[in-house]
C-alpha cells in the first residue's frame, strides 16, 4: 500500500477544509442577501420554495417588504370579553387539545399598574387568566399573544429554521419543517408559543380552508392572521373586538391608523428589558373601565 506522507495529508486536509469554508461563506452571503433591508434575522428558505409553500397554503405571495405590521391594544378600553381569543380559535383552526389558545387575556389587579412588567408578583396578587365574569370593577384586562418581535429569540434558536421573520415583520412557522424540539417555546419570554402535545383534530365542517392544519408534534402560534393581513384584511381578533380596543396596521406608514394612535397616546410594550423589540403596543386612552 502506498504510504500517504504526513505533509501530503495535511495539504489535502487543509485544502478540503478551505473549500468547505468557502462554500459555507458563499452560501451565507447568499442568505444574507435574502434577508431584506431591515437586517432582520434571515428567512432561511429560498424564494422559490417559500413561494411554493405559500401558494400551497393559499396565502398568496404578496409580501410587501416596506411594511411592518404592528398592533396597538387599548387596555383602557378592553373589557376582557375574550371574543378575540375565541374568534382566533375559530379562524386559525386551533384544535381543542391546545390550551391556552394563541391569545390569552390576563385579568390584572388595579395595583398591578400599567408597567409593562407584569410579573409573578402580580399573579400572587390576583392576576389570572381564569376569570368567570368580565368586566369587573377593580380590574383591567391585558390580552397577550405573539409580539412578532423585531429581535425574536425564537427565530434565533431554531435549529432548522422552521420559524422565521418575514420581510413584512411577521414571525411565522413552517409546520412541515418543525422538529418539535420546543427550543423556541422556552426561548419566548412571552410564552406565546403553543405545542401540539397530542393529535390535533378540528371538526371538518369548522375548518377554515385558508389556514393549514398542523400535525402532532409541532409548534404553532399567532400569525397576525397572515392569510388575511397580506390580502389587505384585518386580523380576526381586531375585527371582532366589540369595543374597538385593537388597532392593526403598518407601523412604517405614518398615516396608518395604528401609527397615528401610537403617536397620540403614550404606551408600553411587554417586557422591554429582554430586548425583543416587540411589535404589540399597549396604550390607554382616557379612563380605565368603571361601571
Amino acid at each position: 500500500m502506498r504510504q500517504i506522507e504526513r505533509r501530503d495529508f495535511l495539504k489535502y486536509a487543509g485544502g478540503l477544509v478551505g473549500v468547505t469554508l468557502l462554500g459555507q461563506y458563499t452560501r451565507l452571503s447568499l442568505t444574507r442577501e435574502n434577508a431584506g433591508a431591515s437586517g432582520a434575522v434571515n428567512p432561511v428558505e429560498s424564494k422559490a420554495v417559500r413561494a411554493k409553500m405559500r401558494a400551497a397554503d393559499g396565502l398568496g405571495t404578496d409580501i410587501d417588504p416596506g411594511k411592518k405590521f404592528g398592533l396597538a391594544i387599548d387596555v383602557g378600553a378592553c373589557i376582557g370579553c375574550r371574543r378575540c381569543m375565541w374568534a382566533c380559535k375559530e379562524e386559525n383552526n386551533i384544535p381543542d387539545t391546545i390550551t391556552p389558545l394563541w391569545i390569552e387575556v390576563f385579568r390584572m389587579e388595579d395595583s398591578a399598574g400599567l408597567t409593562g412588567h407584569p410579573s409573578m408578583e402580580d399573579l400572587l396578587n390576583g392576576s389570572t387568566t381564569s376569570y368567570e365574569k368580565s368586566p369587573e370593577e377593580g380590574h383591567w384586562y391585558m390580552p397577550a399573544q405573539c409580539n412578532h418581535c423585531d429581535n425574536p429569540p425564537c427565530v434565533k434558536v431554531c435549529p432548522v429554521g422552521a420559524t422565521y421573520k418575514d420581510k413584512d415583520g411577521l414571525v411565522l412557522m413552517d409546520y412541515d419543517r418543525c422538529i418539535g424540539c420546543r427550543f423556541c417555546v422556552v426561548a419566548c419570554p412571552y410564552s406565546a408559543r403553543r405545542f401540539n402535545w397530542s393529535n390535533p383534530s378540528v371538526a371538518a365542517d369548522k375548518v377554515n380552508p385558508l389556514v393549514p392544519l398542523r400535525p402532532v408534534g409541532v409548534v404553532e402560534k399567532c400569525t397576525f392572521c397572515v392569510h388575511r393581513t397580506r390580502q389587505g384584511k384585518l386580523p380576526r381578533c381586531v375585527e371582532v373586538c366589540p369595543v374597538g380596543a385593537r388597532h392593526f396596521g403598518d407601523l412604517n406608514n405614518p398615516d396608518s391608523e395604528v401609527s397615528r394612535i401610537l403617536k397620540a397616546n403614550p404606551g408600553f410594550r411587554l417586557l422591554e428589558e429582554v430586548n425583543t423589540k416587540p411589535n404589540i403596543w399597549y396604550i390607554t386612552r382616557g379612563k380605565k373601565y368603571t361601571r
Partner: protein
Amino acid sequence: MLQRVARAQGHNERIEQLLRPMLQTSPLFYVFCGILLTIIIWFAYAWYIQLTHGLGVTAMRTPVGAAWGVYIASFVFFASMAHGGMAVSASVRLLKLRRLLPVARMGEVLTAVCLMMAGLSIVIDMGRPDRAFSMLFYWPQRVVSSPLSWDMTVIILYFTLSASYLWLTMRSDLLHCEKRFSRRGIIYRLLLIGYQPGEKERVDRLAWWLSIAIVFLIVMLSGGVIPWIFGLMSSRPGWFSALAGPYFLTAAIASSIAAVILVAGILRKVYHWQEHIDPAIFKGLSVFLGVVSLFYMYLTYAEQITMRYAAPEAETMVSEMLLQGELAPLYWGMLILGFIVPSLMLIIQAMRPGWFSITRTVLASGVIIAAFWLKRFFIVVPSLLRPLLPFPTGTYQPTWIEWSILAGTFAIAVLIYTLYLKILPIMELGEE
C-alpha cells in the same frame, strides 16, 4: 536471564487475567443482560406509545407547566458525563499520568456510550423525531445562531474524535485478542485493518494531538454550548446567567470523575482485578471528586445569592421555589445528602490511610452521580414553571412513560458498556 523470563511470565499472566472476563462467562452475566433487555423492551413499548400518541403522554405542557422535562435533564446529564472520561484519558497522555492508565479506557468507553445516550435523549424529546436529520440538512444556515446546532456540531465532532482515539489506542491490544479468541477473530481483524508492526509510535503521536483537540472540545461542549442552551435565554428566570458555563463545566468534570470511580470500582470487584487497579487510583480520584463537588456547592451558593439579593422578582421566585417552596425538601436533600456529605466524606477519609475504604468511595460516587442527575432536573424544570407573564402556576410530575424511557436510556447505556467488556479489552495490555 532468569529475571527476564520471570518478567515475561508475569506479563503473560497479567494479560491472561485481564482477558479472562472476555473468555469466561458466568450465568450471572446472562441474568444481568436479561434484566437490562427487559427494561429496554419496556422502554421500547413506552416510546412506541409516545410516538403514536404524541408527547401528550408525558407530563410536559406549555405555557402552564414545563415545556422541557426529564428528557432534557437526561440529555444534559449524559452529555456532561461524557467529558470526564475523556478528560482522565487525555490527561494520562498529556500530563503523563501513567498511574491512571488502568482506568483511562474505562473513561473513554464511558464517553462514547454517554454521547450516544445524549443524542438519543434529544431525539426522544423531539415532537417529530422523523425529521431529526433536518438538523443536519439545515446546519449550514442555522449554526450561525442556534445553540442546538452548536450542540450537534460539537457532539458529533467530539464523538468522532473520542471514538477514533479509543480505536487507535486500542489497536495494539486487539492483537492479543486476535491471537487468543479465534472465534471472534473477524471483529478484531476488521478493527486492525492496515495494522503494521511498528505503528505504535505513530499512533502515540496521533493520540497526543487528538488529546489536545479533545481537551479543547471538552471546554467547548461542557463549558460552552450546552450551558448556553440555558444561559443565553433571557426568557427564563434562573437560566440567564454568565455563570452557566463554569457551572456546567464543573458539574461535568465532577459527575464524570464519579462515573469513572464507579465503573472502576465495580469492575475491580466483579472481575477480581484487585491487583490491576491500585487503591491509590481511587484515593487520588476521590479527593479530586470531593474538592470539585465542594466547588460546585460554592457555585450553587453564588447562583442562589445572586437570584435573591436584589434580583428581578422572577429570579427570586425560582430561588424561593427551590429553597422554600414545593421542591425544597428534594432540593435540600440533594444538596446535603447528595453533595456536601459525600464530598466531605471523600476528602476526610483520604486524610489517614486507615480511614480509606474503596467500597465507601464507590458508594459516595454513585450518590454524587444520582445527585447530579437531580441537579440537572432542578436546572431545567423550575425556571419553566415560572413564566414571566402571569400565567397560572403549573406543575410537572413526570408520568410513567417518562420514567420508563429514562430507565431505558440508562439500561441501554449499561448494556452497551457490558457488551463492550465482553468483546473488547477495557484495559491496556501492554506490548507483546
